[in-house]
């Protein structure tokens, strides 16, 4: 796997940027905690404990699974320059489809498990695919259409779990508990960490392989760099757009299916979108840059931020939204990294000009 090694090996300045972004975010977080009258060391300790302590790690791994999947859902189309911000809609579409199959299709686990997963991936993939022809045939940017489709999708699932699929008599809008056959097998001794993690890691490996080692990966990269060049070379931009968006939606749908097929084994309204997996995934993907193999690392970081911030809220009474704020700071610092590169380039140019 020399190619993987090569993708992971970062030049010194390339590694500095993401590390710098994280450092700046940590400093901002510390400042905010100070302003809120909390010792930042205690705050961060509570955050890490909230994610990584023995009692919390099980839950945190479930969060990691979802965030890693959502980071792929953003990163795959981003490879060809399209921004998928409709992850929430694709996530709930996958979740509700998996729940519907589990609730209405009787069958043994061997049949039901793959069926639920496939249904979730199909639902998420289909929803995301709609944006492809909207972009390539109607010229509506993917970033707009994915977002505008997401809100109605979330509203529709919300309707479904409140009315047709609701558990009767429950005060919370939720579906009944899924049958045992549709429960993803958990790791021994764990209740949240289950086969979903394996599925998402498998998708990650496939993505890394396709990106680096197949003609399709090359074509996606070319289309991302210059659409005119791609069309000139005979590549089908519409087909590549459809493919990347369908894949992205399918991964998001997979995440939704995994969530409803894990503890507490139901689709609860808001439970999929409230933790903010979609934008944690976006931040993780941006932090990884164009290197899919780095996604597990960055996804882990944002898992600590978002899962850990709940622990922080519990232990030191700092609102959990701090996690979101820190994600935003990482994204903004990354966006401004051009500053650093521009500065280096300007210096180099001045040095060259001086010699001439």
């Amino acid at each position, binding site marked *: 796997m020399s*190619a993987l090694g090569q993708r992971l090996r970062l030049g010194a300045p390339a590694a500095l940027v993401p590390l710098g972004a994280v450092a700046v975010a940590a400093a901002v977080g510390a400042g905010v905690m100070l302003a809120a009258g909390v010792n930042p060391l205690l705050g961060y300790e509570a955050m890490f404990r909230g994610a990584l302590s023995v009692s919390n790690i099980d839950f945190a791994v479930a969060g990691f699974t979802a965030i890693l999947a959502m980071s792929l859902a953003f990163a795959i189309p981003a490879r060809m320059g399209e921004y998928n911000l409709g992850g929430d809609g694709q996530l709930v579409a996958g979740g509700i489809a998996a729940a519907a199959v589990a609730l209405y299709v009787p069958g043994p686990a061997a049949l039901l498990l793959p069926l639920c997963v496939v249904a979730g991936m199909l639902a998420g993939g289909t929803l995301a695919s709609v944006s492809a022809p909207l972009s390539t045939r109607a010229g509506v940017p993917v970033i707009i259409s994915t977002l505008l489709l997401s809100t109605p999708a979330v509203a529709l699932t919300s309707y479904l779990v409140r009315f047709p699929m609701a558990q009767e008599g429950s005060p919370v809008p939720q579906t009944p508990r899924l049958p045992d056959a549709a429960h993803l097998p958990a790791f021994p001794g764990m209740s949240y960490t289950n086969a979903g993690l394996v599925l998402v890691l498998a998708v990650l490996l496939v993505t890394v392989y396709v990106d*680096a*080692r*197949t*003609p399709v*990966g*090359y*074509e996606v*990269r*070319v289309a991302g*760099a*210059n659409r*005119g*060049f*791609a*069309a*000139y*070379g*005979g*590549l*089908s931009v519409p087909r590549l757009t459809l493919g990347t968006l369908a894949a992205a939606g399918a991964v998001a749908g997979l995440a939704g299916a995994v969530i409803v097929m894990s503890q507490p084994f139901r689709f609860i309204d808001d439970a999929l979108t409230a933790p903010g997996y979609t934008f944690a995934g976006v931040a993780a993907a941006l932090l990884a840059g164009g290197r899919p193999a780095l996604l597990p690392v960055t996804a882990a970081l944002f898992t600590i931020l978002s899962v850990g911030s709940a622990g922080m809220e519990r232990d030191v009474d700092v609102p959990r939204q701090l996690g979101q704020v820190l994600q935003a700071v990482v994204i903004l610092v990354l966006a401004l990294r051009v500053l650093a590169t521009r500065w280096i380039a300007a210096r180099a140019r001045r040095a*060259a000009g001086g010699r*001439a």
Partner: protein
Amino acid sequence: MTGSTAVGSAAGGAPPAAELRGITKRFGPVLAVDGVDLALERGTVHAVVGENGAGKSTLMSVLYGLHRPDAGQVLRDGREVRLGSPLDAIAAGLGMVHQHFRLFGSLTVAENVVYRAEPARFGVLDRRAAQERVAELSARIGLDVDPTARVDTLPLGVRQRVEILKALHRRAEVLILDEPTAVLTPGEVDSLFVVVRRMAEQGTTVALVTHKVREVLEVTDRVTVLRDGVVTARLTTAQTTAGEIVEAMIGRGLVPAVNPRGAVRGDPVLEVDGLRMPAAPGASRVQDVSLRVSAGEVVGIAGVSGNGQRELVEAVVGLRRPESGGVRLHGRDLAGLGVRERRRLGIAYVPEDRQGMGTAASLSVADNLALGHHRTPPIGRRGRLSPRALRAQAAELVRRLGVKTAGVAVPVSSLSGGNAQKVVLARELHHEAPLLVVEQPTQGVDVGAGEEIHRLLLDVRSRGGAVLLVSYEITELRALADRVLVMLDGAVTAELDAAEATEEVLGAAMVQAGRAGSPAGSASGGGER
């Protein structure tokens, strides 16, 4: 080695309207202009001529404040001026019409002309005053422009007039026209020259940057010829000949690559029959074009840019669907086939738009060289892609064509124009496709690399390939083509054998075709074939 029929500079009397003294300008290691003197006498039309890369554009950029010279002075009416930016130049009474217009397409003619120098009352634009100003300026130099028209609805020739009006509105006394005829139809060229003469009579000084000798003879008073950054001749137009100018431009040292002609022609490779496409905003029409390119033959398409050449080529390579008519390759009808299939059947293509189509600037040289080869061995094999084979092939191609690059992993954006073009050629020639379609192969390429590119194209011919060459440069067509077709308003209006296609005959063919049509070149030009 200067063949100078030197003209005594207008000694005594008034100082020149603009003068450059001892201008030197370097770009990194390249000496673009070396100690050049140039005096533009008031009320004259002065040609600044030279081949691509001779330094004429650099020199005019210095005069217009776009580049600061490394040495030398700029004088206006005998007084030294320091031009830090085009704004300083405008303030000093200089104006420039760039080859690529700097107009706001969605704004009206009047809005474009008065932009940043608007007649206004309390911040509210005085539209009537703006329109009157445009009318007054146009009347003065005999132009006909509707001040209320949106600029992007106008033909290129009219847009150029808007640029001239813009400069005049800012009271430019010295006007630089950079390759003004490159985008014009022959009819538009004629009317531009009328305007240029009229401006000169009214005291405006015009510097005409060009490499077309015919234009120099037709409209200018004085000529300064540049070659390799130095002045090789200062001539008075009335006392010189085309031969003398060309000799000063090209020099005796250079032996350009020239088609040996007369070689045996093979079977037809490309046949185009009755191709038609309607005009659309932004696209020219194509009217009933038929042509044939045989193995071992270079067929040139001559004509002014925007007369249907791009649309014809896009129909051949599969980027554009024709309304009617057929394209056949080795006798096989290509109707309904896309770019990928046509490439597989044996069409290679070097597009005019190198940045937008020919390369992906942000990708590496290796990735750029792989496009179209990425699904065939050794790079692609059974759904897999070998990064190692991709780099190895790139290294081989870079070596074979002598591309100057820091390696195959650096982005194409780091290469010079000539080397980027060699990357495109390397990729397209690697197919050894029976048909090579080339547009403007040496545009934006320095003279040395241009010669190498010409040799490569002639190599394709000698190994029996068919080449369809679109060029706006008559010299290029003369050097490379076996036959030349002239296109005007989407139709082929003349077909000439290499022997007949001298510069004068080709130029005349284009001019006559233009005169047969309407003067603005906007509608039904070129009737008879």
